[in-house]
């Protein structure tokens, strides 16, 4: 059966009074093919009154003959309508029902985006864009390429401010992106992770825009504090570029944790610190060298040399498919500290060390457990 014949038979069965799934289908077709002389959009307002006519079996039973005859008439009177009808037939049979709802949803999404009718928070975070576009792009990497296994997600509070502190590795900050996907997908409340990014991120044109839209903001004390006080889940990678750009021989050895600014923000806001250990990111671009003069010239922290990168050209940008494990440890509460403790260097270093040790121990355990990095 051709698509058109199939739909016509549906029309016929509706006409016969059977309780088919699509009695409505008969009427718009009748209206579009037979009665309108203009483009299809005029069919829309006419649909409602015409729909009521289907309740009269008598009126509809003559339908089987009508579409053919009227289709012929319409194709002479309005080729545009006939073309639309044909395309609709094809689309309908090829796509099926569910897809059409999805397409309708997509069209509505697109028109919302085109008119600027969406919400953006004061940091520039666009949750709709993140969920509809950015996260789906990262998911294949997350699920299939890196096969990320997430443990301890119950240690992330259901609501309220919390500070996730993780180790950084991988030559490019792919671990932060994967953590964002992990938290969103695994957390029972689908919490969005608001990440704190280095200055360099916000200087690079397209990256800075995408970073802001996905919820990242500048790693400065004011923003960290503001996010935590607003009850957001904040992610920080204190090793910074020292961590991402460390040579492969130093893998899983934590670098210095900065000046402890994240601890200060956590104490001031009373938010718990959740240590997070990411295993697997070290192996995606094993950095075996660094072209320092070029890095200085370009003003970037390093120009990595990996087993694949400059030699294989663009192919070298494909990350190796290591097996990832992201584990969240028990949260370290900070509300027992006085707010003035945020100014006390001893308190800050003490807490920083505690977090660092937790992550280092966990990394050692996970690496031993994982065994082969690529399985």
């Amino acid at each position, binding site marked *: 059966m051709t698509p058109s014949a199939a739909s016509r038979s549906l029309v016929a069965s509706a006409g016969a009074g059977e309780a088919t799934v699509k009695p409505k289908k008969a009427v718009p077709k009748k209206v579009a093919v037979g009665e309108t002389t203009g483009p299809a959009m005029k069919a829309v307002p006419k649909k409602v009154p015409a729909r009521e006519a289907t309740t009269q079996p008598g009126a509809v039973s003559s339908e089987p003959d009508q579409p053919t005859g009227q289709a012929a008439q319409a194709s002479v009177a309005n080729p545009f309508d006939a073309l639309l009808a044909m395309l609709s037939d094809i689309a309908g049979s090829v796509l099926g029902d569910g897809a059409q709802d999805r397409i309708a949803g997509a069209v509505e999404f697109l028109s919302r985006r085109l008119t600027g009718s969406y919400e953006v928070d004061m940091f520039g975070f666009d949750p709709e864009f993140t969920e509809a576009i950015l996260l789906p792009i990262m998911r294949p990497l997350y699920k299939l390429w890196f096969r990320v296994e997430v443990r301890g997600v119950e240690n992330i509070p259901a609501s309220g401010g919390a500070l996730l502190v993780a180790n950084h590795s991988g030559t490019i900050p792919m671990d932060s992106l994967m953590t964002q996907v992990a938290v969103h997908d695994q957390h029972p409340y689908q919490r969005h992770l608001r990440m704190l990014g280095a*200055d360099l991120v916000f200087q690079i044109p397209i990256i800075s825009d995408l970073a802001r839209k996905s919820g990242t903001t500048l790693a400065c004390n004011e*923003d960290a504090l503001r996010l935590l006080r607003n009850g957001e889940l904040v992610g920080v990678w204190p090793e910074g570029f020292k961590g991402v750009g460390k040579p492969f021989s130093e893998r899983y050895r934590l670098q210095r944790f900065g000046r402890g600014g994240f601890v200060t923000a956590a104490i001031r806001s009373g938010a718990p610190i959740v240590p997070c250990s990411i295993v697997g990111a070290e192996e995606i671009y094993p950095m075996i060298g660094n072209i320092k003069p070029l890095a200085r010239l370009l003003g970037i922290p390093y120009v990595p040399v990996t087993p694949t990168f400059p030699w294989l050209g663009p192919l070298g940008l494909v990350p190796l498919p290591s097996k990832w494990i992201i584990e969240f440890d028990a949260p370290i509460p900070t509300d027992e500290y006085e707010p003035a403790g945020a100014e006390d260097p001893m308190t800050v270093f003490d807490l920083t060390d505690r977090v660092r040790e937790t992550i280092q121990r966990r990394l050692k355990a996970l690496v031993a457990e994982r065994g082969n990095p690529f399985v």
Partner: protein
Amino acid sequence: MPQVVMVTGVARFLGARFAKLLSERANAPRVIGVDVVQPALDLGKAEFVQADIREPVTAPLLDEHGVDTVVHMNVLATPRDAGGRIPQKEINVIGTMQLLAGCQRARSVRRLIVKSSTTVYGASSRDPAMFTEEMAPKVSPRSGYAKDSLEVEGYVRGFARRRPDVRVTMLRFANFIGPDVRTPLTEYFAMPVVPVVLGHDARLQFIHEDDGLRALEQAVTSDVAGTYNVAGDGVVMLSQAVRSAGRPAVPLPGLSAGVVGGLLTRASIASFSPEQVQFLTFGRGVDTTRMRAEFGFEPDYTTVAAFESFASARCRDGLLDRDRVSRAQRTIAGLLDITRG
């Protein structure tokens, strides 16, 4: 409650509107508007005195009329209206200095309210998301209206130290927007095709023209001194605003602020200085907690609502106009309904 209020800059839209608003309210004080040219707009019940505040004419004026409140609105954002950058700087900086010198000598002055701007915070990639009043700019503005505003604020602070009996209120306004006000930014959005900087999306915050004037009025009638950010709630991304205005956005590589600014200036559409292009690249957010908590002002319009009120008045005929998009959406929905049945 002030008895005699002097308002500078009444030949301009906001100054004229404010003089009118203040002079026509209940229990209105005597309002004296000052500017170098005759105002084209109606000043309501306010009197007009033609004077160039760059000259030392302020002190005699203040003494003659016994002015107790001075509202300084004569810091210009657009060089074109002033007749070039040099006159603009003179009016802004020298004008303010002379005004403050006059206020310092006049014993009758008790209140000074200054219309300042959030441009003093600058716009750079290193900025925190929201600026509070005590924060300094990360990258200090080096030219244009922003630098003038910074200097003006500096002089005002100096004046406040020399005359501690005068209560000084500095209101840092976000970009004014609304159906009537004309600023470089409003002209930018009213262009048929809007150039934006490639790869960046600025966060913009607006204050509706009516809200801004109400804030100034509140500053006059209340006795609250200090520096406050005044802006609508929330931010809008530049891409979002351009779409809301129904215009297509053309991304241009914006490494040199001069490229986009020069383009626009030569097209005589809007004159954009480098720091204004920086603003369109990175944007800026300001925290308005103190405005609500201490100054006690609540804007009626959020940033989005303020922009919408401007867009519905001035941006009706764009390529991606809202009506067109919803018509297209209905067509496609109709098509799908035909398919679906």
